């Protein structure tokens, strides 16, 4: 059986078709890379934010407890606050240069919260401790002892 030459030629692609396919493939892989990168980064950021939030909440909860039960609030500088608790125990909170927060209670090991206090500063206002993080929003923590002492019937 004899074949005509045209039967032996297999259909191919033109150079234009190959270039278009390559361009589409490059675009597709670029998009895929971006999606992959975003996923990894977002997962890491979400996890970091969650840890940071838990740390901050824990520090704020302890700080609020200390303020609530304090007989005096003294801020010698914006990064240090000293309390005298109702049972006369001195408690000190300090923000160091690495934005870590340290709580020192006489007779107990110090507690640390790492990198939670970025731009934080303390100020005392009568029966309140005012915590500022550099934004206009401030956190006010009330001392129940001081408040009740000042509102005697």
């Amino acid at each position, binding site marked *: 059986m004899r074949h005509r030459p045209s039967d032996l030629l297999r259909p191919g692609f033109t150079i234009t078709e190959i270039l278009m396919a390559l361009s589409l493939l490059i675009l597709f892989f670029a998009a895929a890379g971006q999606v992959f990168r975003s996923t990894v980064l977002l997962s890491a950021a979400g996890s970091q934010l969650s840890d940071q939030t838990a740390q901050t909440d824990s520090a704020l909860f302890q700080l609020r407890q200390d303020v609530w039960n304090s007989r005096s609030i003294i801020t010698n500088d914006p990064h240090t606050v000293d309390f005298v608790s109702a049972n006369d125990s001195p408690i000190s909170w300090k923000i160091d240069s690495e934005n870590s927060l340290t709580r020192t209670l006489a007779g107990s090991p110090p507690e640390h919260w790492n990198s939670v206090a970025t731009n934080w500063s303390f100020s005392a206002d009568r029966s309140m401790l005012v915590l500022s993080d550099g934004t206009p929003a401030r956190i006010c923590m009330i001392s129940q*002892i001081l408040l009740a002492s000042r509102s005697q019937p």
Partner: protein
Amino acid sequence: MTPAKNHRTGFAMVTVIFLMSFTAMTLTVLTLTIFSQARRGQVSSQDAELRQLLTAGANFAQTQLQSQTTVHTAIPLPDSLRQQSAELTIDIDSISPTQKIVEIQASLPHHHLSQKITFELQQNVWRPISATLSQ
């Protein structure tokens, strides 16, 4: 001559499924993060409201210390708070003639805060000597 088999490797399908999984994962993480932050904001706001109720309760309790020995009172709240189903109760217990413990409980639906204040009679005035906030 046998016809050429049409081989399909499914490369595109596998890649699309892979990318869609990644996108779904990203969206899930994003949604969870947004939801947890929104929930945190809501809890912070309710906490602040409850703490205000606790300080108001402490103020009210101080007025009751002179006259009452043991009391359990639910303090009537303004309409705006009642509409939120807020409640504020006070328990005053006398542990000695010169010391009283006041337990104040403030609650909103699904959220609760309480504090215990110890008052001591000093120079004929009831003064707070400790206050413990708890959830």
